[in-house]
């Protein structure tokens, strides 16, 4: 399950998508819009994705995870459009037979997503705005 959506995110569909009879652990991560970023008050965020590239990059991260950890399944869903404080922008779920693999892979997934998946957010503050995108560590 790798998706870009303009709908609100919930974890249960991701959990259902990754759970196998071999799964003893499911680690998940939710990225949430918080009211403050680098000392500035956030009014809202606006997310934009290069969808045709973002989905293959999510699959690529899942492939990297399978080579590093013993996992059952990986799911990633990113939301686009305008998000208010408290709303989830990204949801990740990783199932595995053992908890260490699920947890480590989930942390890796969100780090890599922020590095290589072409999704941007415009932070709109009470006193200005700014675009933030993938850190592109792969390239530098």
């Amino acid at each position, binding site marked *: 399950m790798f998706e870009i959506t303009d709908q609100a995110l919930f974890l249960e569909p991701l959990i259902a998508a990754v759970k196998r009879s071999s799964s003893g652990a499911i680690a998940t991560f939710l990225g949430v819009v918080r009211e403050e970023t680098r000392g500035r008050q956030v009014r809202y965020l606006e997310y934009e994705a*290069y969808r*045709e590239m973002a989905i293959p990059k999510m699959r690529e991260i899942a492939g990297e995870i399978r080579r590093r950890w013993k996992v059952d399944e990986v799911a990633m869903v990113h939301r686009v459009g305008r998000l208010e404080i408290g709303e989830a922008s990204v949801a990740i779920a990783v199932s595995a037979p053992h908890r260490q693999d699920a947890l480590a892979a989930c942390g890796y997934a969100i780090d890599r997503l922020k590095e290589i998946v*072409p999704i941007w957010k*415009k932070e709109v503050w009470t006193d200005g705005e700014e*675009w933030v*995108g993938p850190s*592109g560590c*792969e390239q530098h």
Partner: protein
Amino acid sequence: MMKIRVRCFASIREIVGAYELVVDLPEGSTLNQLLRDLCERFPRLQALRGSLLFSVNREYAAIDTTLTEEDDVALIPPVSGGADV
């Protein structure tokens, strides 16, 4: 000449005023030449030039990548474009 499709996102999109451009370039041009061409037409791109990433056909690509007709290029602003964009 060849036609290159250039997709623009985030701060880049706001500067060029379009989600997509179709650019004519001489055969054998590289991403570097495309970027130079765009910076002439949109001088505000200059400030972002050092931090831009590129994709060609949905894969990250180095700046010296040679382009071919109908390649699908995207300009990928990786980090903050500065408070003015």
